């Protein structure tokens, strides 16, 4: 089978473009000219194989961390926000830092699925499923923080525009409310998009399932998919529409998250550059997290190395280089505007509280960690050798993850800790509960991802097939 595939492919190739030998051809997206059934087998096998030991061990590690996070959350809700380290003037700190951090990570998946889909970037197909799952789980983790950071959790429904007898509506002027709408819309659309994309693959798993439970559950969620023309037509239209719907959301969510800061009057928050800078930063951090997940996965499942190839990693590294440079530009532009604006309060925040080495500010270390991780470390990706070296890419991704967390910390905490009136300046340091809650969200995230890897096809089988040469309608014929 494989052999014939190779010969078929080779002969097709020779026939197809006899007179353009000097044209640079794109490397194939699926390496080693794998056939369609090979793809189905290899991806489905991950789900169908007996439960691997490493998976159980990993769960034994992540589930207790997740439960610890949950316990911290219950403790916090039951006792009050005071169990964290927030104070006056630092009304927000790790909570919103973590929220923005996770929501930023949640950008890569939908960007890969939707924006790259619309722009016909076919290389997306082998990573989009996992990236989308990662997005959803990151948004779940992100959503925890704004929900629990409020003082009266049980009244969180006041945020919903529920008609009530008092005639009180939420305050539509508040960016925090826009946030609620933006994040919940983004989550909903991302779930739908992910699920719609899963349907053909769920049907594949249903058809291959040997156990009754598997047949039943995959059957339920496959929504009666038979792969008929009508199904495909509707499916593709739905997928396209959802991609169209998701694309503006990718841009809007983090823009709106940035409004939380940009529309305020705090020096260091009150900055018009925030929306594009936040979106770029989110994509930057999101891709780093995709790599953080995919590189180990590719190592664990060597069979998918033909699907997630070095060129995928190379492309993602390029995106990291681009967005990292945009973020770096934004950082420098903030400093420029603070200088050019000649507002002493702004100037203090940027030059003395954040950037200066002279000890005026209290969190310079956070600023310089951010600068190193986000601006300097990705510059190594100017070199192709580095972009395709999995270890280097993984290390830089970790720098980016750390740097992006510190970016949010810098924005939130340095601005609040030292604002207008020096009398009300105040230090902030996180409490143990706060730290464990953050660690707990990693437990939740990894647990969800492990469950996803085990029970759902982590590579979009049907979509990868579409980018194989066999799927090309002009397969074997010259291009028009």
């Amino acid at each position: 089978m494989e052999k014939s595939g190779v010969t078929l492919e080779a002969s097709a190739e020779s026939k197809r473009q006899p007179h353009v030998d000097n044209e640079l051809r794109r490397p194939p997206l699926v390496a080693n000219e794998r056939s369609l059934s090979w793809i189905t087998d290899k991806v489905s096998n991950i789900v169908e194989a007996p439960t691997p030991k490493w998976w159980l061990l990993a769960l034994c590690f992540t589930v207790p961390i997740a439960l610890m996070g949950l316990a911290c959350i219950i403790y916090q809700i039951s006792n009050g926000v005071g169990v964290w380290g927030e104070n006056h003037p630092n009304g927000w700190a790790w909570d919103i830092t973590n929220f923005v951090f996770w929501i930023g990570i949640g950008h890569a998946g939908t960007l890969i699925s939707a924006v790259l889909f619309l722009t016909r970037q076919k290389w997306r197909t082998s990573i989009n499923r996992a990236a989308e799952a990662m997005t959803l789980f990151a948004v779940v983790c992100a959503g925890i923080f704004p929900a629990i950071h409020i003082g009266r959790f049980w009244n969180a429904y006041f945020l919903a525009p529920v008609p009530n007898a008092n005639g009180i509506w939420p305050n539509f002027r508040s960016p925090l409310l826009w946030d609620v709408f933006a994040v919940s819309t983004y989550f909903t659309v991302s779930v739908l998009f992910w699920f719609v994309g899963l349907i053909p693959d769920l049907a594949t798993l249903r058809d291959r399932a040997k156990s009754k439970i598997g047949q039943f559950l995959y059957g339920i969620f496959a929504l009666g998919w038979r792969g008929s023309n009508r199904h495909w037509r509707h499916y593709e239209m739905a997928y396209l529409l959802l991609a169209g719907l998701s694309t503006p959301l990718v841009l809007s969510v983090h823009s709106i998250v940035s409004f939380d800061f940009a529309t305020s009057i705090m020096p260091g928050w009150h900055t018009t550059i925030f929306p594009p800078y936040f979106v770029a930063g989110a994509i930057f951090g999101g891709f780093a997290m995709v790599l953080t997940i995919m590189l180990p996965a590719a190592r664990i499942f060597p069979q998918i190395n033909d699907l997630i190839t070095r060129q995928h990693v190379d492309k993602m590294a390029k995106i990291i280089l681009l967005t990292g440079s945009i973020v770096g530009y934004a950082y420098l532009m903030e400093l420029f505007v603070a200088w050019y604006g000649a507002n002493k309060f702004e100037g203090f925040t940027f030059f003395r509280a954040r950037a200066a080495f002279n000890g005026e500010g209290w969190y310079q270390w956070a600023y310089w960690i951010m600068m190193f991780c986000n601006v300097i470390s990705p510059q190594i990706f100017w070199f192709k050798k580095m972009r395709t070296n999995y270890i280097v890419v993984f290390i830089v991704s970790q720098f980016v993850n750390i740097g992006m967390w510190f970016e949010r910390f810098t924005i939130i905490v340095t601005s609040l800790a030292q604002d207008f009136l020096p009398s009300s300046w105040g230090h902030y340091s996180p409490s143990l509960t706060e730290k464990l809650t953050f660690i707990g969200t990693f437990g939740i995230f990894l647990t969800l991802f492990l469950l996803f890897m085990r029970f759902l096809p982590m590579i979009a089988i049907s979509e990868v097939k579409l980018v194989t040469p066999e799927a090309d309608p002009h397969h074997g014929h010259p291009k028009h």
Partner: protein
Amino acid sequence: MSKRIFQHPEESQTGKRYWRSLGQLQDTPEFRGWLQREFPQGASELEGGDVSRRNFIQLMGASVALAGLSLSACRRPLKNLVPFTRGVEWSVPGKALFFTSAMPARGGAIPLVVTTFDGRPTKIEGNPMHPVSKGATDIWAQSSVLDLYDPQRSKGYLLDGKPSSADAFQKALAGILSAAGDGSSLAFLVDGVQSPTRERLRKAVLAKFPQAKWASYEPNGNDLELEAAAVAFGAGHEIAPKLEGADVVLTVDRDILGVEGDLASVRAFASRRKVENSADAKAKMNRLYVVENRYTLTGGMSDHRMRLAASRAGTFLKLLAAEIAALSGDSSLGKIASELKVPEKLGGKDAAKETSWVKECAVDLWSRKGKSVVLVGQRQPVAVQLLGLAINSALGAIGQTLIVRKTDTVPALGIGALAEELRKGKTATLFVLGGNPVFNAPSDVKWTDAQSAAKTVIHLAMEVNETSAKATWHVPAAHYLEQWGDARASDGSYLVVQPMIMPLYNGVSEIELLAKIAGVESDPLALVQKTFVEISGVTADSGAVWANVLKQGSLEKSASKPVEAAVSVEAISKKVSESPAIRVGDKDFELVFITDSKLDDGRYANNGWLQELPDPITKLTWDNAALISPATAKALSLETGDVVKIIAGDKSLEVAVLELPGHADDSISIAVGYGRSEVGSVGRQVGVDVYPLISSESKRFRTGVTIQKTGRQYALAITQEHGALEGRGADITRQATVEEWSKNAEKANPDYFKKMGIDAHAPENFSLYTHPALDDVHAWGMAVDLNTCIGCSACMIACQAENNIPIVGKEQVINGREMHWMRMDRYFASEAGSESEPEMVSQPMMCQHCENAPCETVCPVNATVHSEDGLNVMAYNRCIGTRYCANNCPFKVRRFNFFDYNERSLTSLYKWNLLSEKGMAESSKMQKNPNVTVRMRGVMEKCTFCVQRIQEAKIAAKVHARDSEAATKPQVPADVFTSACAQVCPTEAITFGDLKNPASKVAKLKESQRGYRLLEYLNTSNRVWYLARIRNPNPKMPDASRAGSASRDAHGSHAHDPANGHSGGHQ
């Protein structure tokens, strides 16, 4: 929502059955049918029919709620109010009643008007009819209402520490008294709080027991000053400053605006700082020179300040006296000065500057002869105080700016003498009435030993303290709000202490106990009335006069009159020449024992409001610390929070240091009153006890102290982490000198104060939006005069009492979560090169009630909104606690309930909610202002401009307008009420009122040229105006150019000269 059910006791099944009609009693079918017709909706439920749809859904709802995460535990508990079954005379539910009273205090009682609700005193105000108070009070009067309801107050008699009863005590007392004979076996120790009735009863007791010993002890009293006055003017005289007439004031180690002054002095001082315009300032403003070892409130108000060790105050006065003697040609002054045995030099680094400082100060004092005064600290030895009196005499101050009065205080034994008596072993019974000598007697007195020489020690106190623990009998004392009594105000006028409530724990008052001992009628009212009749001299119709005294709070024209007196130069000279030398260490430090600005001598240690009130200067809460100068800290490589060992003779203590800018370099200051061991849970383990270092010779300061670093750290709870202005003085605390203001007077430069700092550059404000009109007939606003605000922080406590603000405890203060709705910002500012001698500015900071409030736009749930009359209001019920509003507040005045401070004890905040005890002590509930919500955890709160008072005034206006034309929009007349902070302010620095009413004070103040709003360039349009501080330096002084440095920005300029091109703002 479930229906509200009142928590009435259930009807007994076996008892009588109550019925409304015969039909109901018989429960006939006709009755049931009638019910069905009358109440078709709910009849079957009422009569206990089958499970209805409604019941079913209720049950299901409850089951679902329980089956879930027991979310019902998260709900706000439902509580109901049950009205009186029988009306109480005068009491209208929800309406306060006001009574006059007085708070007895050392150095003069404070005339009060007490607010009571349903017989519960909830708030203390000053008596506006009395000249000492004029409506103002201090922090101790404000917080005394909390002591009344302290759940850890003494609640019963103790015999050897075990609960006993009043009867047993009476029996024991009768036995003691019957065996007392001539009283040689009796001794009394009282505190320094004066009361005419106590004086009268003292005479009665001593008449019955002529041999009894009577001693008095007050660790922070003015005994040295009285002694000096007795030497200078003869026994039975006291002195009092009269600052309203003083053009030039020099204080030497005297915190006349703080712990060593009273409301009258503060008001008198401020009266010379209340200036309307630049001409007024030039004509009226006094000049204050301050010499002190540490920054005090007085130093904060100074125009010139010299930091000088307390032990060198004598040297300073000696040099000053020499200058003044030279100017006046008064040889006797020169002679007295030369007799004072003190070092000849001040010992500073810049001797020439010091000499010029003293000289110019003397010239200034002399140039205002008769209108200048020198005030010497109560801490200073008698000889130094006498030299001060001699200088005042030379300046012609006696009788003008320093008045002499007769005092009726009869001398008593000191605590040392009493201890000696006790050690002789002849005293069988010792009465300790008030006070806490076991804790605060000088260490060389060895009071605990002396006290144990007495067979029976009877201690009357409001709390079980160190002395009670070592006493045979502890007798619970009544709070002053629970007893009849009388007192003298600082001006000597007669005040009646009127009870507001029956004793909560059957406490007895001092006069009741003394009357019992004296064997006279012990009804306290009768006792006080008898004194009153004696003092007033009314014979006929004393009832009507008495009623009027109760109404007015004081007896008219009872203030003591100044007497003509001249200092006796011989007596002074003799005493000064006999006095021992004052030693100053060259290598070691002096240690100054300061009266704590909050706990006094430790008596208020169990008062949470006071413990949590930041010290006006250091901003330290819940602790005392060794205050040292930054230079000393650097020399010893110490930082704030480092624990040091302070060694004084054979005693030592370990305490954390706190760097205080402007402190003298060779001096350490520590507040007394901390480190209490026998006290309620609030005061326990708070601070370090300094009394062991105090001895009879060095009661107030001692020299020859060494300091050692221990290497340990200690967390101090300081509410203001940062005290420097960071070049923002011209934005935040605007100032000018009298000269600068005159140059930029109203006509010359109307916007002088408005265009300082960033506002000099910012373009004209405009808004993109049409804001909702604030079209109420009222527009509430506030003006804060930085020129008269001394920073005493009484406003903070008044606000706390008025608005049910909880305390959060030391740990939470360290975490930065104090709840005070208003704070007193204190900044130090200096010019380059003079960092060791900074200027200090205090600035009260509360919600600015911005018309374009940044907090309002960001709240996602509309919990903070604007009212038509211009208040930025909080709807606690709607608040979910995102804290976004607090983040977006440029003034950081919003306060978040990080924990359920009202329901949880301060030690259990971190315990799992379900496992810890909840609820507030019943007595603490009684203190709460019923017109202000007690907030739960998770909600934001902040200054409301005392919205409850506004509403009350509006309702009153509406009731008054009733049927008239104005009834649709009744207007509150100008200045008929005010906010709690404005009401308490002794200098009237805070003014609250209606900006739309041209007759109101605030409307006029806001038009002042000095008026500015904070961070105007943000376009928040604040409703609080600050009036810039004016300094009045003497241009000849060496440090004159430094005045006003706190408002210079980083470029060293006050404001931009309008001529220099970029005055800004008019693009």
